[in-house]
């Protein structure tokens, strides 16, 4: 973990209620599947946001406006200096992926799949990516994933774009391992449908984000785990729903 100041370069809307911001700063300890915890003016607690990409001194975060914190974030202007805790959480283990990993992101769970896809692809692995959204106006990053060379499948619940249904309706390809992030009902559906081992990234209300307050603990088959420090990524075998 590092406590660093980043400068906001861009902050733009890329889909319904969804914003992409690019920050400039020291990204040396950021791994895929980790998150950063952002101090926001006027709010007491930091806001944890998963890492979408971190390369060339630039950190990309994508967030959905869901409350007062992300609302304030959506109004941040370029040039704003932000106090971040970086390198939080365990992140994904790319060693376990096999040759043909499947990446499944739902809504605000899509962003962490991007850096992961980039890394797996650079390791010579062929990624299949399923991106799940509610409706066409919520879809983002389809082209970005395609540019990485992944096979991309987009699902929308209302059928307004791509495959009609949930991410699980697209899970018909062959894969060696999977990684997923999204709302808990989606994670559970993926868990039930999946045929291999895999990794799940969980979300929880956090106090500190670095393991001190025990605000986000869950039970696993391997003992109690703090989502912020021992997670957010849990392996399939340890999860207790």
């Amino acid at each position, binding site marked *: 973990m590092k406590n660093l100041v980043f400068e906001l370069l861009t902050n733009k809307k890329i889909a319904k209620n969804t914003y992409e911001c690019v920050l400039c700063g020291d990204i040396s300890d950021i791994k895929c599947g980790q998150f950063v915890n952002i101090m926001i003016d006027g709010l007491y*607690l930091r806001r944890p946001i998963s890492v979408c990409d971190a390369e060339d001194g630039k950190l990309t975060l994508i967030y959905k406006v869901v409350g007062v914190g992300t609302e304030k974030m959506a109004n941040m202007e370029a040039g704003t200096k932000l106090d971040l805790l970086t390198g939080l959480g365990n992140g994904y283990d790319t060693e376990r992926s096999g040759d043909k990993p499947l990446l499944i992101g739902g809504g605000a769970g899509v962003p962490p799949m991007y850096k992961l896809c980039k890394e797996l692809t650079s390791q010579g692995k062929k990624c299949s990516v399923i991106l799940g959204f509610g409706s066409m106006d919520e879809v983002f990053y389809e082209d970005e994933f395609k540019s990485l060379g992944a096979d991309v499948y987009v699902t929308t619940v209302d059928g307004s774009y791509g495959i009609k249904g949930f991410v699980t309706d697209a899970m018909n390809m062959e894969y060696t391992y999977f990684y997923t992030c999204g709302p808990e009902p989606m994670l559970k559906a993926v868990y039930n449908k999946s045929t291999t081992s895999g990794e799940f990234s969980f979300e929880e209300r956090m106090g500190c984000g670095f393991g001190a*307050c*025990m605000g986000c603990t869950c039970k696993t088959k391997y003992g109690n785990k703090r989502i912020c420090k021992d997670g957010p990524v849990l392996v399939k075998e340890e999860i207790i729903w």
Partner: protein
Amino acid sequence: MVNTKVTLCGIEIDNPIIPASGTFGFGQEFAELYDINILGSFSFKGTTKDPRFGNPTPRIAETASGMLNCVGLQNPGVEHVIAHELPEMKKIFHKPVMANVSGFSVEDYAYTCELLDKEEQVGWLEVNISCPNVHGGGMSFGTDPKNAAEVTKAVKAVTKKPVIIKLTPNVTDIAAVAKAVESEGADGVSLINTLSGMRINLKTKKPILSITTGGLSGPCTFPVALRCVWQVYNAVKIPIVGMGGVTTAEDVIEMMLAGATAVEVGAANLVDPFASKKIIESLPEAMAKYGINNLSDIIGGAH
């Protein structure tokens, strides 16, 4: 050169800054960031006789200038703490530590304290009779002077280490509880634990926290804490560890003027992991600014 040393229940500490229990774990997360030996001490994660998972999530909610938690004393139990956490802590922290203890019966408290009494690095036992987030224990001991006295007596019987009783502000008369524990031999009191509060999620129209209510901490609690320290200072002769929303060196000075011998820093550590370090580093300058040479001279100075 200003002097930040104070003596808490017979143990001299380099400065009065003590991260509060439940906001500092067993020090590991913070030792990754800075040398925690700069601290006066720290109060480790509240420990009970048996392991506890605590309450379901959500355990955290935010409010203006503060936060609520209902963690519910998650801890691996005293045997595990002694076998695993303390040996690890010893590697990163080389000063007397404050052992925070909670329980669900008088016997629980005595059992846990008796075991921790044998631990060399434990300087003080901070007995939490004020956790608002567990049923059938915790705060129920701290809201009744008679029960508070009973726990104090039982703990004093099993330890030679100084016993500091941690008090709840969720009472009509905190001074009465302080007097009760003093009369049974408490060596000090620490206050305040969190204030009982709640938030409602407007989208779901239900309470945010899993058990509806939680403990409020953060800067919004500071004036309440200060008032409690003031009142308790008037009521007892034993030292007071003041806490509640302390975020700056100025807050520390204010708390000490109200009557605190040492000061615990809680929620601030969670928002800024360097908070306690920053307070310690800025203390000499703040002391100089207010013409304070010896920090221990100002204890209760506002009375």
